[in-house]
């Protein structure tokens, strides 16, 4: 049954594939041809749960020259079918543009409905277009399509212009609703060179041709076409869904001037490196040293390299406040930032880099793209929005980000942990650096508890958080008084009552955070007949698996690998003896991605439980999803197994 089923599917896939390429070769659809059949359609034929779908989307990018310089014109046509009320969101369009040289204009927009068996068109009028100032530089253009109902078809054509030609706006073939037909058409003047990269798992059909326009200018036309693109929606444990949606990125790599000389931009890492150090807000800022020399000399004199790194990291981290601005270029410059004790990412981390260099260490800037910004793809500067510092001591490269008050050497704030970064050196060039933490972060929990005959549990807990676990604790418990800390921990575990809460080393980053408290819980043990049943992990067992979905389309991102260890000892009440305890268990995940160990040793009046689980890789590919899900399921079942006590 199953075999033949999947065989049929495969067979159809081939047929569809052939069918698709024939269809794509045909002329692309146009706006203004809405049929009764389209309006009558109640559900998307391939995705019955879709609230809306792009029947057609076409974006054409052309270039023109005017007094202001070179302009990029993006002309988009879209035809959207609304199936349900949740699809109404697509009838409101909003986008932003730069006041200087930018514009967005709505060329045509209309809603089509079926009225008495006929197609009725309602055009968008000026009254439904809204323009507003967002900041001095940025404006927003919004329009609200009229007369939208379930079943409506929406059409619009929008033309955007901008003078920023370095990086074209990424074009998404894939969306959170299905896309039936999508085409991206690039018309590049032949003297412009763009690097293009297609991301995601789909392969658009690509056609290229050279066309000669009026006045004899040559234009390179490339079209990218896809049909039947399924919707991709967001799930838990994902950094940035846009990384995985099918899209194209285009980056200006060079141009030929009127003397026919080719000027290259960032087409390879060497030229990217050249450009970054030439940038007046980067290279020269990194070279400045006189503003800090006197201050740091007494700190680092006579110290080892490791000591110097730690001392200077702490010095910059405690002196500087991050003003929440990202970027790898300085705004006010390192000197002013140093003096005012406030700066952006570049100012703080370039300052640190030059201090380390000045003290004789091999330190270099590492450019990266934050989680919010997505994963970068090809040699280019525009892909980056952040800079940290890399220090090579011996064979080891240490990663430093002094902008975060709770970061440590090699413990970067989560925003900066995104796949890979690129280390740049003025003389030696650049290389790729993995930002994914490789060493696991540890958590150790020790509990001493006593069970009473009426099923109450009292005890003391002591939690030690190391590395990223410590960073996470410090971030979420920052600035809270002890009472609020206790409240917060109580909230994490339903029914837990905490007293005598204390925390050590919250501000001493060099040491692990130690949280300790006395607790009481009355809802953990079941008294049934003359027996007591309870899970020896008490309130610390994982209640529910985070992985409940049937399939996964992109990797699971744990941010960092970890090791959690629990040592729990429970004194059983007088008058009871142990009837049964859960068996020892060891679980392992394929390719050593995770391990789980559970062991319980009943001694006379005390149970001694040891539980340890590791997730050994920060990012686990979606191919392992089933395995990961099963691992969590078994681990959770084990964590919730019961000890049985019997009345003597």
């Amino acid at each position, binding site marked *: 049954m199953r075999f033949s089923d999947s065989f049929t599917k495969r067979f159809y896939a081939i047929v569809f594939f052939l069918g698709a390429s024939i269809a794509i070769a045909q002329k692309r659809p146009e706006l203004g041809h809405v049929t009764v059949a389209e309006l009558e359609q109640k559900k998307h034929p391939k995705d*019955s*749960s*879709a609230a809306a779908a792009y029947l057609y989307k076409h974006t054409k990018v052309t270039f023109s020259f005017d007094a202001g310089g070179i302009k990029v014109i993006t002309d988009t046509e879209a035809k959207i079918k609304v199936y*349900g*009320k949740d699809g*109404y969101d697509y*009838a409101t369009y909003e986008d932003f543009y730069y006041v200087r040289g930018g514009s967005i204009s709505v060329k045509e927009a209309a*809603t089509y409905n079926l009225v008495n068996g006929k197609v009725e068109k309602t055009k968008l009028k*000026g009254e*439904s*277009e*809204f*323009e*507003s*100032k*967002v*900041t001095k530089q940025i404006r927003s253009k919004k329009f*609200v399509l*009229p*007369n*939208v*109902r*379930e079943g409506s078809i929406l059409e619009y054509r929008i033309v955007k212009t901008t003078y*920023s030609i370095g990086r074209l706006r990424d074009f998404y073939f894939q969306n959170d609703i299905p896309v039936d037909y999508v085409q991206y058409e690039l018309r590049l003047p032949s003297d412009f060179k763009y690097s293009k990269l297609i991301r995601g798992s789909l392969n658009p059909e690509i056609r290229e041709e050279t066309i000669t326009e009026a006045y004899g200018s040559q234009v390179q036309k490339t079209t990218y076409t896809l049909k039947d693109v399924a919707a991709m929606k967001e799930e838990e444990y994902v950094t940035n869904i846009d990384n995985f949606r099918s899209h194209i990125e285009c980056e200006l790599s060079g141009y030929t001037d009127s003397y026919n000389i080719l000027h290259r931009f960032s087409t390879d890492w060497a030229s990217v490196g050249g450009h970054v150090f030439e940038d007046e807000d980067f290279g020269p800022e990194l070279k400045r040293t006189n503003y800090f020399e006197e201050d740091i000399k007494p700190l680092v004199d006579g110290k080892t390299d490791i000591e110097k790194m730690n001392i200077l990291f702490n010095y910059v981290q405690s002196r500087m*406040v991050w*003003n*929440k*601005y990202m*970027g790898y270029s300085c*705004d006010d410059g390192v000197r*002013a930032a140093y003096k*005012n004790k*406030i700066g*952006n990412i570049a100012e703080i981390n370039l300052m640190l880099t030059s201090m380390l260099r000045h003290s004789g260490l091999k330190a270099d800037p590492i450019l990266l793209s934050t989680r919010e910004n997505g994963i970068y793809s090809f040699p280019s500067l*525009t892909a980056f929005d952040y800079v940290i510092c890399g220090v090579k001591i011996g064979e080891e490269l240490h990663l430093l980000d002094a902008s975060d008050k709770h970061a440590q050497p090699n413990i970067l704030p989560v925003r900066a942990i995104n796949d890979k970064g690129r280390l740049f050196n003025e003389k030696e060039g650049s290389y790729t650096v993995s930002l994914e933490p490789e060493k696991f972060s540890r958590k150790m929990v020790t509990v001493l508890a006593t069970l009473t005959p009426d099923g109450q549990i009292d005890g003391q807990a002591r939690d030690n958080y190391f590395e990223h676990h410590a960073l996470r604790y410090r971030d979420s418990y*920052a*600035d809270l008084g002890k*009472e609020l800390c206790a*409240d917060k921990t*109580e909230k994490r575990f*339903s*029914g837990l*009552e905490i*007293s005598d809460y204390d925390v050590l080393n919250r501000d001493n980053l060099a040491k692990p955070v130690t949280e300790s408290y006395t607790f009481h819980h*009355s*809802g953990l043990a*079941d008294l*049934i*007949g003359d*027996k007591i*049943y309870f899970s020896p992990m008490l309130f610390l067992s994982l209640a*529910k*698996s985070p992985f*409940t979905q*049937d399939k996964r389309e992109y990797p699971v991102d744990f941010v960092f690998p970890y090791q959690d260890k629990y040592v729990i000892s429970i004194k059983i009440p007088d008058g009871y003896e142990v009837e049964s305890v859960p068996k020892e268990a060891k679980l392992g995940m394929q390719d050593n991605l995770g391990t789980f160990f559970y062991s319980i040793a009943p001694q006379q009046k005390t149970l001694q439980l040891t539980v340890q689980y590791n997730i050994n890789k920060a990012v686990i590919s979606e191919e392992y999803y089933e395995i990961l899900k099963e691992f969590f*399921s078994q681990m*959770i*079942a084990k964590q919730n*197994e*019961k000890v049985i006590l019997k009345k003597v």
Partner: protein
Amino acid sequence: MKIKKKFLFFLFAGALCFGQKTEFPVSAISADLLENSTAVLRKEKIEIEIESRKSVVVKTYRVVTVLNEQGLSKINASEYDNVRSVAATILDANGVEIKKIKRKDFKEVAVSEGSVITDNKNVFLDYTPTQYPFTIIYESEVQSENTAFIPPWIPLNEKNMGVEETAIVIKSSPDLGFKSKSYNFEGWDVKQEYLQDGVAFSLSNVTAIKDEAFSAAPFKYLPHAMFGVDKFNLEGVEGDATSWENFSTWAFRNLLSGTTELSDETRTKVKALVADEKDPIKRARKIYKYMQDKTRYVSIQLGIGGWRPMKAKDVDRLGYGDCKGLTNYMRSLLEAADVPSHYAIVYGDEDKMDMQQDFVSMQGNHIILAIPNGNDYIWLECTNQKMPFGFLGDFTDDRLALLVKPSGGALVRTDIYSDNAQNSKGSYVLQADGSIKGDIEIRSGGVQYSGRHHLISDSFDEKNKFYKAYFDIHNLKMDRMDVAEDQDRAEVSENLKLNAERYAEVRDNRLFFQINAFNKFSDVPQRYKIRKNPFEISRPFADLDEITVSIPDGYNVEAKPANVTIKEKYGSYRLEIESISPNQIRYRRMFTMQVGYYPNNEYEGFRKFLEQVAKADSSKMVLIKT
């Protein structure tokens, strides 16, 4: 893209040369005000002068010590309208001045009003501190021509902020009919002074208000005061707030006049739609559906101060509007079908906030529609395309709304949902390997209906996700998720089939499992050593479950949980487990909560009640192999 931010240099020189004057050192704050605080309000003085019907000036002087990053938002340095002046000074922990911030260093954003960009600006401070704690002295003066809204006094508006001293003085030009009304002053040491055409209130040394579970709505227990004038101005239109009736008449004439006109075509369409219907309510029901299918909610602020609705014929043509536009459109459609209805102003919020009976002024933030039905009203929420006719949900239930009418306008209470029932009936079969297979039908009404209503339009994936989070069952697989609704009864029914591996723990020759598989209460609220806030159960509910459990062949019940009955004033709980055949057990569970408002010292009793419910809900059953 690189965003440049230019920093303005400032000089330390001044601070170094002159003798330093220190104010507001952090050391002067008493320990109890620091407790649970992320910032402390050192001194606040708000002076409001209603100069004339067309001008009110608000001067603010506020000193806040910010203890850490969480407290940064409590500076509250943000102004709208005509900002005459704004400035700030930053002091270090010792009270030594470290920085002055002038008007030009404040950020400014234009406030857009639909397609028109107005002159109204939002001016706000965007300051990144270089050290904590620090103190900021903030001063502003703002003028507005709208005297319809005089800012209320809410001295304890911010949580986690201790207050040293806060005061308000408000003066009005005579003959405008100045009025004030205070709430919850008793129990708080508010100094009060009543002036000719004005008042002065102040409050000092109040410890920080904490966020606590089940806290009553802040307006129910924290001191605050409202102010207003009988003769006000709203965007150039003069108004009268001497009584709700007068106010209602004014609003009808000035906000609603000339807005209900419809095209002949639409009028004809509406008439045809209800041609066979004599009963006005049945007519309204049909028209409501028509309106829901034709329109959608879009937030737009147009017309006087955002208070006048879009014209009905525009909503008709465009098919969208905000709450005012859509409600008024519905009113116009009903008018075309000779069904009278009233535009009604309310506060839309999960907390039930009344329009104040004894304080007539511009209030509320949402519009609904009232259709007279005998001595009662049928209420319509017009911004939701999926709500059943006559259903409001918990956004506008049980509160006073103002009917806007040509004459005889008054405050009327909206519908109260007292029967928020959820009935579950079903069964599950337990296998010897610990797995279960189950069927269940869940019917939800009242506000429980609101909570489940999204399931009607949710996609397969969304439903799947919802149930996996909703049921307390590991490894859950949903085999059927049929959801339907009965719009007339405002009831959602879910018809579900599910299975799960490892539901019961298999140990040697025994099986352990939680008998209540489908409706487990586990959210025991937090315990507080010292509970500060009063607490409130704002809506009642009643859950009733009846589930039959089949146990595997060859097993007997070794132990079953005792039946539980708990009765408290907060609510009641009952769990009854009985064998109905050798291999079938039935459990009946009833959990209800009553509406109530209780002082802080009763919280622990309430928490204990819920703790007992959670415990009973997790009762385990033990089966043994025969």
